[in-house]
């Protein structure tokens, strides 16, 4: 499913402030696996996730997701890849505060060219999976942190992506909401989704349904 080969990422490349966020990182993730990238802040987890999501391009190396060469995708194709194949859950949710939960979840389907009926059914199914149906008509700004995160999960699932990427998903949640989130991840794994979670939350360290934990430090993988 995911093949990362010798990937490096340098910010401010070619300047005196050049910073190596990733150094020759290589690993593979099989279809349906759940992998946790564990490491402290600044270890390169988020950079790696943004490369897997096609949000950024590496400075060198190869990233292949589901047979698609992500590291070289032109912008237009990177957008298509994100719109179809990837669901992303961000640390700060990145929701549209003035819209309702339902409307936020609908956003990825705006350009999908599907009928309103199919759209409604997908949105309902997605909100159900993320246990946020009861807040469907509520504006996002009125939600708690945990509810916002569940709304973000529903949005990430609505286009039925094969790959789900979560960047520090529990960093802004209390323990109870973090456990609820982990429960949802377990359900998604049961549905055959490939999941990569970047986190420094110790709650993810000994989860039974996690296939692999990849440790990261200073832009490198440490097992």
């Amino acid at each position: 499913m995911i093949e990362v080969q010798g990937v490096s990422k340098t910010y401010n490349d070619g300047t005196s402030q050049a910073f190596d966020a990733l150094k020759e990182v290589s690993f593979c993730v099989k279809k349906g696996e759940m992998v946790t990238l564990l490491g402290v802040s600044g270890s390169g987890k988020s950079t790696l996730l943004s490369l897997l999501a096609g949000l950024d391009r590496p400075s060198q190396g190869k990233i292949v997701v589901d047979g698609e060469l992500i590291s070289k995708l032109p912008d237009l194709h990177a957008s298509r890849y994100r719109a179809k194949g990837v669901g992303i859950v961000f640390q700060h949710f990145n929701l549209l505060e003035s819209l309702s939960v339902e409307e936020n979840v609908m956003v990825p389907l705006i350009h999908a060219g599907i009928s309103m009926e199919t759209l409604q059914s997908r949105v309902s199914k997605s909100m159900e999976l993320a246990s946020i149906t009861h807040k469907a008509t509520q504006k996002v700004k009125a939600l708690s942190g945990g509810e916002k995160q569940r709304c973000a999960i529903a949005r990430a699932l609505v286009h039925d992506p094969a790959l789900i990427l979560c960047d520090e998903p529990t960093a802004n949640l209390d323990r109870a909401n973090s456990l609820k989130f982990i429960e949802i991840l377990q359900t998604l794994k049961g549905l055959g989704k490939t999941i990569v979670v970047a986190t420094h939350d110790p709650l993810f360290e000994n989860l039974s349904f996690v296939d692999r934990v990849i440790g990261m430090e200073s832009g490198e993988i440490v097992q």
Partner: protein
Amino acid sequence: MNEVLLSHEVMVYLLSESLLYGLLLLGFLVSLRLLKLWDFEAFTTQQFRLETQSYLLATILLFMIVIKLGLLPYFVYTLDTLSDIVPGAMCGAGVIKANSYGNPLLLVKSITLVLLGIWVTLHQLDLEKKNYPYFRIKTWFFVAIFVLLSVEYGLDIAYFTQIDIHKPVTCCSVIFGQVGGANALPFHLNTLQLLLLFYLSFVLLWVLIVSHKVVWSLFGVLLFAFFAYYSVVYFFGTYIYELPTHKCPFCMLQSHYYYVGYMVWGLLLGSVFVNVNRVVMQVFFHQSVETLQRLSWLLPLLFVLLCSLYVGVYYLKNGVFL
């Protein structure tokens, strides 16, 4: 200092062209570097940098092309304003003939715009694919266009610096009229024959486009443009001016005629531009671009309708033809 160079319009025009040329030169140098080092199969830092630079290059070129597109009508407008200081000139027609660089400059400008349009289409096709299949060819194409753009810039400078405002030029009535007994219609045609050929060439172009005779439609559009030019100058123009003796391609660009010339010539140049572009894409790259396909018949149709409208409106208002 030459009074022409002190004209606001000329200053703005030459400054804009100089800035654009500076950007183009930068783009040209980056292009050469890209062509030398590009290897899409490589996953090295250098190749990733080159790919980022190729985005920058494309952005510069697209920006330049948009400005250049606006600068062509501005160039014509500048010529028109110079008719106030060039003795004998009544409009841009006299000014463009003020020295031997004028007409070649206008021709080179039109050709570069058509070529830049082909570059834009090629670039769009390239972006639609995942592995930059047209990268090398579009970059080489830009390098070739750059040579022509350099010639154009040289002609720009030569033309504006060598307009002698003490030397009278001939006005449009002499250049295009029959004052000196000249009949500039091609093949000794009379106006009716010319008009007939104009409409026939339009029908032919349409038939060729609809029947997908790609290569022949290039011939069709050039034939159409040829007869269209003469028809506008020697027939339709007289209805725009509402004066049977006034034959000029430039005066219709003036405010007295609501700047309709920009639309007339814009549609004609657009027709050539789109059809040449469409043929190049289909013949050399086997790609059919839907927008070009639609515009290839729409622009000539709008051109013919606009020209014919002037004749029709004149007849309805006055009950006679000129």
